[in-house]
């Protein structure tokens, strides 16, 4: 397995795609920070504490990153017919599947660390600090006592702690789509639907279904990654919700890995 992951990392480090995509993300973050700086020179200042809470509004980007890193690691194996090179050497399909899932997750973590580090670091350098500044955001229910830099970092930390398992769950769903669907475009659409839209469909089905079944569907929709991620800013600091997020994330990882592996092990390699 280690050999497989090493090889995937080697491939990623030798692709321009890896660097270009990261560069685009960082450039967009840079633009946002430049906007804050420009705003500061013309109007009331935006403090570091206020700026970094923008991260909470960008949770969906995490699911987009899942799709992107999944595509980078999978690298069009069906389109390029390269899976035959791995299978014909006797590598087990379980190793191939899990190797790619782990490589995707490692790449996502690397992206997360770099993007968060860049955003928070640059904000810390370029924006003013005030330990008593009030954090205001229409998306976040700010708990009492959460002020200044430390309060903002606690909010962001909680959000990332909730988001991480949910994003990994999204990663597992994306990986299953890439392995099960031969078309890259089809797999991308399926992954977007599962990670970002499925909860809305389930919720709608719940609203339209009368009785307890409808209530169950609505509860299920509330416990899907995208739904939980949008709820997280309103429950900052809640440990029970954090625990639920990890359980849901782990359930998604387990469920989609089992489904993906089951399908891939029976798939004809063309």
């Amino acid at each position, binding site marked *: 397995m280690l*050999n*497989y992951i*090493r*090889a995937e990392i*080697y*491939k990623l480090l*030798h*692709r*321009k*795609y890896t660097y270009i995509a990261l560069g685009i993300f960082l450039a967009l973050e840079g633009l946002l920070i430049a906007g804050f700086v420009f705003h500061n020179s013309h109007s009331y200042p935006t403090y570091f504490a206020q700026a970094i809470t923008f991260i909470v509004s960008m949770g969906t980007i995490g699911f987009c990153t899942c799709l992107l890193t999944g595509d980078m690691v999978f*690298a069009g194996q069906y389109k*390029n*017919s*390269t899976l*035959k*090179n*791995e*299978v*014909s*050497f*006797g*590598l*087990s399909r379980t190793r191939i599947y899990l190797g790619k899932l782990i490589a995707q997750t490692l790449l996502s973590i690397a992206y997360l660390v770099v993007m968060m580090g860049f955003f928070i670091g640059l904000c810390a350098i370029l924006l003013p600090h005030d330990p008593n500044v009030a954090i205001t955001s229409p998306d976040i229910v700010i708990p009492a006592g959460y002020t200044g830099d430390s309060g903002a970092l606690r909010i962001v930390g909680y959000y990332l702690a909730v988001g991480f398992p949910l994003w990994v769950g999204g990663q597992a769903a994306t990986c299953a789509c890439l392995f099960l669907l031969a078309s890259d475009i089809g797999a991308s659409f399926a992954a977007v639907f599962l990670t970002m839209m499925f909860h809305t469909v389930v919720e709608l089905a719940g609203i339209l279904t009368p009785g307890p079944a409808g209530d169950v569907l609505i509860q299920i929709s509330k416990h899907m990654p995208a739904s939980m991620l949008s709820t997280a800013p309103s429950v900052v600091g809640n440990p029970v919700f954090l625990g639920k997020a990890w359980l849901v994330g782990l359930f998604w990882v387990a469920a989609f890995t089992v489904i993906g592996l089951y399908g891939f092990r*029976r798939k*004809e*390699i*063309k």
Partner: protein
Amino acid sequence: MNDNTAVMAAYGLKKAYGACMALDGVNMQVRRGDVYGLVGRNGAGKTTLMRLVTGQSQPTGGEMELFGASGKDMRGQRSRTGAMIEIPSFSPFLTARENLEYYRLQRGIPGRQAVDEVLEQVDLTDTGKKKFKSFSLGMKQRLGLALALMNHPDLLILDEPINGLDPEGVAEFRQILRQLNRERETTILISSHILSELSNVATRYGFMEQGRILEEISAEALHDKCRTCLRLEVDDAAKAAAVLQIQLGTDRFEVLPGNVVQLYDYLDDPKRASYALAQNGVALLAMEQKGADLEAYFLNLIGGGRHA
């Protein structure tokens, strides 16, 4: 070098795609040291057979063995094989060296020199930063062969490996195969539409048609069957044999049923043979020069008419 140990064997192997039987009970044995030429026209099942051996597809019936292992145990033996099935496929955005290094790491083959060695072996050392997507078909074939060779396989499985190679490349390829077979005792299972080329390397043949192996035959036996001769149809074969021996001083002939004599001598002077027979009262009812190459033999075997 050849012995009777089966490196790869199939027993009643079947593969169906819906209602279509791609393989319909294949029985075959590739023995250690063989260069086994798989001959068959498009759709005969050659590639399907190779895909089953390499684990890309699962059979729907029958059994297979690879180095004596069957069923799920076969997978472990696949690391002893090198394969190039259909068009070689690699990551289009990596160079030849990067692609091979990726697979070297993945397969746990020690030493970076393994990549340099195979690149040199297939003459792809000077491709520099050129990406795979910019390779010609010939270069892709060479890289596919390099990957197949990188782990020093005991069994090499090659499907149409010389497609796209220039004449020089074909000669080099032939040389590589001979060298591997001779020096490393690598067993080779190879299919090709270019039967004349196949006949330059194969030591055994399997003729496939409609998902079945029609015949397995050694190169020597095939050579004997394909020998050029004069086919003489006479009224008295025994008398003709005596004339050939006494008058023409040759014993290079065979007497076949139906008063047919196959003469392997006097191919460049058939008139002398016919004259001697006539002089001695043997009626020559028909005479034709007969012989076949691999292609003619194959076409005759499957009933002729269509191309291999």
